[in-house]
């Protein structure tokens, strides 16, 4: 992320990231696992340990033997939207499949947030963060045999831009691209109209992963159906909508990311992603061995897989945590005191303690603790019902006969339309707000209804998170100067200038300062009302090893293997 520090040193831990929250508990467990691995495999185990990620409850079984080649891993996902093209999809289940089929220009170290080499052995940004030069490694090829060269990078990025809104994530990462230049077969330069410090991290994501230039010519439908030729360690063997996607080993794959322990072909023969929409079926299928692993066990069932022949591992998704986004174009939520009171009246600890798993964490800021440039703002997010009441009293909101506050005949009542489970989270928030005299009306419905309400700007609060392992996600979600105008629907404020500056800052310390400043402003004025960190939990049978999280908490099957 630093212009001068051009990447050749993977794993240079950013001092700003090595906070106790990141390294503490996870590291402790890693060490005991390493010890269990025994001396023979010490080296392998150490490698695995150093790349395992910043998990909160790591308990993958120690390897009795080294990685074993062969076998099929059955992995359950819950939703199939009919598409597995990495450049188009945006939902977590499709991403789990798509991620394995492409290699990216860079990779991100899950522990430090550092951007490290993958297909690009060197990369460099100019000091304005408007121009990025990538030098590709040699010898890497697409699944159809063509070489991964500079021209193919240009073809890919242009194809993503051409997809427009269909490229749910890629279109935002590339929105300000002004030109892509092929300097020589190994060197490509991407230029932006505006400073774009987030771009290096974007190149590490699956959605800017590379497909063969021939695949760029396929119809969107064929690409959705998995007929593309990728660059990753797995290729698509078959994909049947609503049934399963089968990935198989890419023979001859030898260009791993610097963050992986495996250096050659994948160990697994195949991975079968079985689509199981019903939560009870996923739990039972894992217990009865009909599937080997899943990241979709409900919070209530998750303790069944703690030991008893299973292991589980949780990692918070980096990015903006679950938030209530105030619609500040409405008169009541335009009042800073009202928003602040709402934030103070929420008991975040109670949400995670009573409704989620022990590995889930309350929000400590707008960004989750696995996000690069995270800083702990818990002090500003303390549960303070008396403070909330005082703010509202002072602002003239007095309790009415029914306990709900009112001012000038207006009740302090709000609505929120949402679909995210567990739906009980907002039911608890509703009770917490009621205790200080605020009425929150809940409408739990489908994604379609929520999208419609958001498109019509017809809501008091919207609700949701956004996964992204780069602090620029703050600008994406809250920035009033972005194309979307931000989730608060408010005019631009000084914080938007800070968000803009952070997007131009390549110097690590400078960017840290700006990101901290922006977070603090968003929290203090309660533009952001964060609740808890979304996390992903892998639950797996003991025979599954080294199924890992990459920096964005997406699943990585490259190092995974099955014991016989």
């Amino acid at each position, binding site marked *: 992320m630093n212009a001068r520090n051009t990447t050749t040193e993977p794993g240079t831990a950013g001092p700003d990231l090595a906070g106790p929250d990141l390294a503490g508990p996870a590291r402790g467990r890693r060490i005991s696992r390493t010890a269990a691995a025994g001396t023979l495999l010490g080296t392998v185990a150490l490698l695995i340990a150093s790349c395992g990620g910043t998990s909160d409850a790591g308990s993958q079984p120690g390897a009795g033997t080294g990685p074993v080649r062969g076998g099929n891993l059955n992995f359950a996902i819950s939703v*199939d*939207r*009919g*598409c597995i093209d990495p450049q188009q*999809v*945006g*939902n*977590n289940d499709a991403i789990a499949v798509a991620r394995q089929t492409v290699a990216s220009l860079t990779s991100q170290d899950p522990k430090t947030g550092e951007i490290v080499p993958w297909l690009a052995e060197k990369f460099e940004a100019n000091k304005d963060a408007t121009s990025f030069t990538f030098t590709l490694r040699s010898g890497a090829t697409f699944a159809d045999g063509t070489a991964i060269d500079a021209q193919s990078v240009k073809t890919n990025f242009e194809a993503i831009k051409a997809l*427009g*809104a*269909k490229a*749910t*994530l890629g*279109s*935002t990462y590339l*929105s300000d691209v002004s030109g892509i230049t092929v300097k020589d077969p190994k060197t490509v330069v991407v230029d932006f109209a505006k400073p774009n410090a987030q771009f290096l991290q974007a190149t590490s994501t699956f959605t800017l992963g590379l497909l063969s230039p021939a695949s760029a010519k396929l*119809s*969107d*439908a064929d690409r*959705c*159906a998995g007929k593309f030729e990728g660059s990753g360690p797995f290729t698509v063997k078959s994909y*049947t*909508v*609503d*049934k*399963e996607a089968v990935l198989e080993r890419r023979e001859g794959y030898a260009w791993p990311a610097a963050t992986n322990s495996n250096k050659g072909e994948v160990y697994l023969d195949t991975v079968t992603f*079985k689509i*199981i*929409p*019903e939560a*009870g*079926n996923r739990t*039972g*299928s894992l*217990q*009865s061995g*009909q*599937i080997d692993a899943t990241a979709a066990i409900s919070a209530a069932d998750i303790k069944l897989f703690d030991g008893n022949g299973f292991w589980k591992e949780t990692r918070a998704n980096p990015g*903006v945590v679950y938030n209530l*986004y105030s619609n500040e174009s409405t008169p009541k939520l335009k009042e800073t005191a009202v928003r602040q009171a709402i934030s103070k009246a929420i008991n975040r600890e109670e949400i995670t303690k009573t409704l989620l798993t022990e590995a889930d964490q309350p929000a400590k800021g707008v960004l989750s603790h696995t996000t690069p440039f995270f800083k702990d703002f818990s002090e500003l997010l303390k549960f303070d019902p008396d403070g909330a009441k005082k703010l509202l009293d002072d602002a003239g909101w007095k309790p009415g006969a029914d306990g709900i506050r009112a001012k000038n005949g207006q009740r302090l009542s709000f609505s929120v339309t949402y679909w995210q489970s567990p739906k009980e989270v907002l039911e608890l928030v509703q009770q917490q707000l009621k205790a200080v005299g605020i009425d929150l009306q809940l409408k739990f419905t*489908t*994604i*379609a*209804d*929520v*999208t*419609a*309400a*958001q*498109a019509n700007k017809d809501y008091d609060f*919207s609700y*949701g*998170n*956004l*996964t992204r392992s780069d602090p620029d996600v703050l600008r*994406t*979600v809250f920035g009033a100067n972005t*194309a*979307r105008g931000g*989730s608060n629907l408010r005019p631009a404020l000084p914080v938007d200038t800070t968000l803009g500056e952070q997007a131009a800052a390549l110097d690590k310390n400078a960017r840290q300062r700006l990101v901290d400043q922006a977070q603090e402003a968003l929290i203090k004025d309660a533009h952001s009302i964060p609740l808890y960190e979304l996390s992903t939990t892998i639950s797996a049978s003991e025979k599954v090893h080294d199924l890992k999280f990459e920096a964005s908490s997406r699943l990585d099957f490259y190092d995974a293997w099955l014991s016989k």
Partner: protein
Amino acid sequence: MLRYVGQRLLQGAFVLWAAYTVSFFILYLLPGDAVSIMASGDEQNAVDPALVAKLRSEYGLDRPLYEQYFIALGRALQLDFGISIKNGVAATRSVAEVLPETIKLAAAGFALAVLLGSALATAATFSRNPWVRQALGSLPPLGIAVPTFWIGLLLLQLFSFRLRLFPAIGNDGAASIVLPALTLAIPTAAVIAQLLSRSLRQTLGEPYIEQVRAKGASEALINFGHALRNAAIPTLTMLGILVGNLLAGAVVSETVFSRAGIGRLTVTAVNSRDIPVVQTLVVLAAVIFVVTSLVVDLIYPLVDPRINIGKTAKA
């Protein structure tokens, strides 16, 4: 007879048009459109609204409603229902790919339902022991009352997760169809049993049964040769509704047992407001209803010679 069939076909065409039109407008009245849903992923929407608007216009979703309707109807008449908005595949192809799976499931479910339903009805009616009659007679209302979803989960727990006799997921092999078909069959069997036992009791009270008995026919001949055949007619009338039940049950059964099929496709298509796919499914369902009721009407005279469809049509 030919004239009657012709008339029925005309009626059928009207039903198809009405189904298409009503579903078109209902889908447009529902909040949310496919393009915005697709662009939003699972999380906080980040896509530039200008890009979303551009895509909506590529799909013609920004045109006046009547224009969209007539364009779509014109294409539908040529059996082109458009392409799925979520993945660009032709809607008819999306449906055709999974239709055989649902046909297999529905056929197996229906066969099981007829078998279970008739067995239960005859056992409940012809049994001499009043306790057995009572116990068996209370099963159909129970089968109708219990949610299909719950039956499915119960079967899963017992036969797949505990006894490990059948797989819990997928469409592969004969074993995978047993539990979903049984789940589908139970509520349908309950309806059949209910209808059949009621009309059996009624038929057994008819004077001609006494006459047959007086002639010295065995109880078995009375029950199975005469009563059952006559009692089958009202049940046959319900066939159209039963087929509807099966389609609705397929949604639940396919979801619980993770089977690909048109039930699952319907759920995802409705949730993502994928209008081309939903309309293809609506028209398909309408075709099934029209054909089933026509077939039922045509086989009436075979079961009961007193029914003459030529006269029915004129009446």
